[in-house]
């Protein structure tokens, strides 16, 4: 059976850590600044931002404007509308008349479409970026089936426990020093006693709770087991997998009642409105806190999910890489590729930063000493981990992640007593998958 997602030979982790933490130090002298890509790239570019969020669109428009100011090339930016719908329709979109460049996600979602010939090979553009692009991101963007890159990494973010410092202070708890499961359960109990939601979760979109599942799995069973499980080398019916669901179930009493009614936006709003203690999510929405007020943003903090099994401590984290791809079937693929490259360059990232983007950047020229306290903490959270994951739905086949794992986690949240049945069904569904074409 060839239904395994091929993994990168290079470990992302070692290189990423060096790049992220000591990024500025890596700056060698004498490298030519390659601000713009291939020579044939000209003509107006159409760019789709993978967001329907006001802040995200503002940042994307700022990128388009800055590119126009620098190169004189017009960029027409449009939002993707509902992001889940955009993600679902991506194969069809890329076979139709797509925009030249679009924001996308590294990992299986890119590599699979690259194998189908729907994306422009950006290896040359990555090479143009030279030492600006840290090696860890290059390896993270590399398609294992042909060793080429089809996405220009721009930003990444850790999945950690997010909380508001002021809320925790009010209820007299300090998650900063939180290390193991006992500390965590005490925190949940403490927040619940104060009448707040201990661990806010939403799973309306069917993917949000994958983050909780993944982190519990790597904490209990380690990184290798998790990746093996997602790629069919470990069994869903294994007691180890069942234990993950049991641990998940133990947290349900501390969650909101309407998990299946709210999406990640609901989780963010619960935190923003000081209605909950902690949420486990990626930090991409920190932009929205900043857009609300600097005070809210300064109040936001992140710590790694606690240790459960000392054997694996806190050695793994989800830290997905986002970036820009160029569509092969577009009107101006070369222009799209050049724009994608520019988005990954220092100039592009500075433009996004100026527009209020609080993400961590995949560029070594960007001095991390200029990061604010929250971003430094994000780096520290990633820095503690030895293994970096791309998030469940980018780490395994799309026809397994969404329609099976996502659905089964929802089924589990509907009826947490059904764990054994859910695990059996999931294994049966994996076994029935056709070979990956």
């Amino acid at each position, binding site marked *: 059976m060839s239904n395994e997602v091929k993994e990168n030979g290079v470990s992302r982790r070692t290189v990423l850590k060096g790049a992220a933490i000591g990024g500025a130090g890596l700056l060698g002298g004498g490298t030519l600044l390659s601000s713009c890509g291939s020579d044939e790239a000209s003509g107006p570019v159409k760019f789709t931002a993978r967001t329907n969020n006001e802040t995200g669109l503002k940042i994307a428009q700022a990128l388009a404007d800055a590119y126009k100011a620098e190169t004189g090339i017009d960029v027409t930016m449009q939002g993707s509308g509902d992001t889940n719908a955009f993600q679902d329709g991506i194969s069809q979109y890329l076979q139709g008349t797509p925009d030249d460049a679009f924001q996308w996600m590294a990992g299986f979602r890119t590599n699979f479409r690259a194998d189908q010939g729907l994306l422009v090979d950006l290896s040359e553009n990555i090479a143009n970026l030279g030492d600006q692009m840290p090696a860890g991101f290059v390896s993270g963007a590399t398609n294992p089936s042909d060793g080429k890159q089809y996405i220009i990494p721009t930003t990444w973010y850790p999945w950690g426990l997010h909380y508001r410092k002021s809320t925790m202070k009010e209820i007299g708890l300090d998650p900063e020093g939180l290390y193991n499961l006992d500390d965590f359960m005490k925190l949940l109990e403490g927040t619940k006693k104060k009448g707040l939601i201990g661990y806010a979760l939403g799973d309306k979109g069917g993917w949000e709770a994958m983050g909780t599942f993944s982190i519990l799995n790597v904490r209990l069973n380690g990184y290798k087991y998790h990746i093996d499980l997602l790629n069919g080398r470990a069994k869903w019916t294994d007691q180890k997998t069942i234990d993950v669901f049991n641990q998940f179930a133990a947290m349900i009493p501390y969650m909101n009642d309407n998990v299946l009614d709210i999406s990640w936006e609901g989780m963010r709003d619960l935190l923003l409105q000081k209605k909950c203690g902690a949420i486990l999510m990626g930090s991409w929405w920190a932009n929205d806190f900043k857009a609300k007020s600097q005070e809210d943003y300064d109040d936001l903090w992140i710590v790694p999910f606690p240790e459960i099994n000392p054997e694996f401590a806190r050695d793994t984290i989800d830290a997905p890489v986002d970036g820009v791809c160029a569509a092969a079937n577009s009107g101006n693929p070369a222009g799209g590729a050049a724009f994608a490259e520019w988005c990954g360059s220092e100039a592009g990232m500075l433009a996004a930063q100026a527009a209020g983007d609080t993400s961590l950047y995949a560029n070594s020229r960007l001095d991390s000493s200029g990061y604010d306290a929250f971003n430094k903490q994000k780096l520290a959270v990633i820095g503690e981990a030895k293994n970096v994951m791309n998030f469940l739905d980018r780490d395994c086949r799309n*026809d397994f992640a969404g329609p099976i794992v996502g659905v089964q986690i929802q089924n589990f949240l509907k009826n947490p007593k059904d764990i054994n049945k859910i695990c059996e069904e999931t294994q049966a569904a994996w076994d029935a998958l056709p070979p990956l074409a």
Partner: protein
Amino acid sequence: MSQSATKIRTRRRRAFTRKDIFTLSLFLGVPTFLHLFWVWIPALATIGLSFTYWNGVHLSDIKWAGLANYNTVFTASPQFYDALLNNAYWLLWFTFIATPLGVLLAYQVDRAIRGHKVYESVYYIPVVLSLAIIGIIWRFMLGPAGLVQVLLGNPGIEDAIPIFGNYSINTYVILSIASWRHIGYIMLLYLAGLKSVDASLREAAVIDGATEWQTFRKIVLPAMAPVNTIIIVITVIESLRAFDLIYILYGTSTGWPILGMLVFVNIYGQAASMLGAAYAVILFLLSIIPIVFYLRTVFKEDIK
């Protein structure tokens, strides 16, 4: 005699001038062609594709799968039976609750009860909205921080009563929302039919001393046979093709699975595979068998 017969025959033959034949073939041919091209060819292609493995991008990647997709649907799909059940609920609800209510309303409005003009408008308004819009409206009303939640005294996200994600009530909520439109639709169709029933028939029944119920059962219902057929077919089709409302309420996470949604997710989504085609064929068979069966019995009676 024979002369006149020939005359008729020739006249008939002459009735189709060249222009007539041209017009007729245009009027029959174009729709037939479009129908074949847009409906039957894709339908047959889908049936073919359901026996293959394919991700929908390059035709060269297609592989013969035999019955494997059907096997997966029946034995290894975490949602197939839930979806079947939800479609069945939908059909039962529409057949026994929504459609009869629509008929009842039409009958009352037709009797010109007091304020019937108001009722007619009120019940008809949702029909001008598509189910997608209806989904958006009700999602706003019932979702966290929605109007209904605020009126119930739960304005915050944290204390919003779970509705669409609450599996002990969401089936009823969804079906009520769908009925909101369906009732008006049926009412309108039936009302149009009732207007065409000869008023003297009912007057005669009243003079003969028939009760209201007897008049309805023995006079109105039989006189409305063609409309009844349409209504039954519409009810079955609406129940099985249900999709837009669920897509708006749940997206592709299929929180409340129905067959239409499974077709979409598995043939269109990131997870495109011909599993979706297999679901589509199953849905197709489920829809067409009862309809063909029903239409056959009805037309048989007509021919008699």
